[in-house]
């Protein structure tokens, strides 16, 4: 397990879905680097393309969707976009662990967790199945569960928080070092959520992982991620170190999103909802900035030119208003 955490470089990734109106991009020209050993959080609302982006890491975008352009380079694996068939199947699970959005519902209700673990081992050609079970027990114990009991249980015998932990164990047990967690705490209670996030942080550090967390909840990212990336309408509009982005957001959407979170202290009237609504695949503007309809800092140029992602040290922002201000 002394293996070094791999880095992931997503470059110019575009994913399109075929619809009656032609192929529409759900993810458009996204570049994002996951530094080895880091936790990156992607925040976005429904339809922002965050789950599609995450699936691209597994090259698992289902038709009618397809990766139209770009690459996803993973250290020790190469460009995932180019992988096919058996090669791709082996990479999933071995190199990339994926905890699905509805991990609570992604277990087979007819089989015990242990049987599903053995299925996983066999399909990936694990010779030492006993060792696999031992590893799984250890991981479960690490997460505060009784390993033997959990492996003997069917999913209905486990609580939501326990199933989520089982999902994480199944993603890690084949020793994957890139882990994607899609909405890891949705539908969980606050206390369980805090618990799961603590486990994610600890397991990440102990096993030397490169982790990507996808969520609609800024709070989740704030708790676990080193780096925060904000998606809107298929575009990555802002990214940077979590504390810096939260403390001093630059993109008008990030600013609005942070302002829209109800807080525990302070004047509640200070929190404001963003006007308008998030775009869907069909309503994303063909040209210009995706956020302009809801933007308070809108300029003329926003109507016609899609802002480029501009880097400034560790921060990256794609906004004309920000670029203009800084170069004025």
């Amino acid at each position, binding site marked *: 397990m002394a293996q070094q955490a791999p880095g992931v470089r997503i470059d110019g990734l575009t994913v399109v879905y075929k619809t009656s109106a032609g192929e529409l991009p759900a993810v458009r020209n996204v570049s994002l680097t996951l530094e080895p050993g880091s936790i990156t959080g992607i925040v976005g*609302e*429904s339809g922002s393309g965050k789950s599609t982006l995450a699936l691209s890491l597994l090259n698992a975008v289902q038709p009618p969707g397809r990766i139209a352009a770009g690459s996803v380079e993973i250290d020790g694996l190469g460009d995932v976009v180019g992988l096919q068939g058996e090669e791709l199947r082996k990479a999933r699970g071995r190199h990339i662990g994926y905890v699905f959005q509805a991990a609570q519902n992604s277990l087979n209700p007819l089989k015990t967790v242990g049987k599903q673990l053995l299925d996983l081992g066999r399909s990936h050609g694990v010779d030492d199945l006993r060792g696999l079970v031992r590893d799984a027990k250890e991981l479960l114990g690490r997460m*505060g569960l009784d390993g033997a009991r959990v492996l003997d249980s069917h999913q209905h015998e486990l*609580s*939501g*928080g326990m199933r989520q932990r089982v999902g994480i164990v199944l993603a890690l047990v084949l020793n994957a070092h890139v882990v994607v967690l899609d909405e890891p705490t949705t539908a969980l*209670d*606050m*206390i*369980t*959520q*805090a*618990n799961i*996030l603590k486990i994610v942080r600890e397991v990440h550090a102990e096993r030397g992982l490169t982790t990507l967390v996808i969520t*609609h*909840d*800024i*709070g*989740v990212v*704030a*708790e676990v991620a080193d780096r925060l990336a904000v998606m809107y309408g298929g575009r990555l509009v802002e990214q940077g170190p*979590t*504390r*810096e*982005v*939260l*403390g*001093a957001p630059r993109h008008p959407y990030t600013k*609005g*999103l*942070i302002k*829209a*979170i*109800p*807080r*525990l*202290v*302070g004047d*509640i009237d200070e*929190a*404001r*909802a*963003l006007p308008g*609504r*998030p775009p869907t695949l069909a309503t994303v503007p063909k040209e210009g900035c995706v956020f302009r309809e809801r933007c308070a800092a809108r300029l003329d140029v926003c109507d016609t030119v899609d802002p480029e992602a501009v880097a400034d040290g560790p921060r990256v922002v794609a906004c004309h208003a920000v670029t203009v201000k800084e170069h004025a």
Partner: protein
Amino acid sequence: MITGTGIVKTFKQRGDVLGGREVKALRGVDFSIPKGGAASFIGESGCGKTTLGRIIAGLETHDEGEIAIDGVPMSSLRPKQRQPHFRKIQMIHQDPYSALNPTRTIHQTLYAPLALRARQTGRSKAWIDERAAEVLSLVGLDPGSVLARYPHQLSGGMRQRVVIARALTVDPEMLVADEAVSMIDVSLRLGILALLKDLRERLGVAVLFITHDVATSRYIGDDGELYVIYRGQVVERGPVDTVIADPVHPYTQSLLSAIPVLHGLEEPGEQPVVPLESLDESKADTGCLFARRCPFRTDRCESELPVLGRTDGVPQEHACFHPERRSVIARPVSAS
């Protein structure tokens, strides 16, 4: 408006040969929501908050205790006679996607309850259309553009507004919002919360929030009451801002400690409380229901059940033998 005393509800699960298992959803809960008032029930899933909300909305029966609406005890009435009383209390469900009939336009959705009302009060058809437009305007939708649409043509936030508009067609005196914003996009949630607050202020409708998100409950207004429910028991009750700022029950403190801290904007509280273990209802409890998970338990907690009440120096009611203030919630980073 509505009061409840000693509400008990037990669900019996059908079990195997050894007989069923009983789940005590509510263990003698008292509550009181005044006319035009506000309250919020918070707690983990399975704590009984939704069951209590459904009992209040007349969608569920209780086993023991008494519910009185505007002073009329419901036990004195036959089920049919209770209907007009419970009609004053309308529920707004969590999922605006399944709460609306997808085959009906918004106009048709609003028409049905309004037509009933028009028949009962001898009003004209024109009144129905007028009132439909009125309730839509009340929830911040443009009647002209929404009435002819189907639910799938609206965003989650707009649908939830339609659900609220439909509830308003019967002139309710109270709205019960069960996790009403949890399925709505983050950037739009606040709009719905502000709308409910606004309806309360403008129409004098009482509001009850049922939520696991404590910050949401502040939107009932600062005169609202917060009820912290744990395993069917109210463990802390008081003015919403008091309980959030100065909680004394270790369970409330654990809930508040678990709320993510926006590092960079906020710093965490100095004395976060983390429960010793996760909830396991299969084990029997002899004393305080929270004792097994409580980092501050004493021998007394394990043998005796504390009841909700007041003690010196604590403004809110609580059910703890050792109430103590702890700084658990995150504070904004001072703007230095």
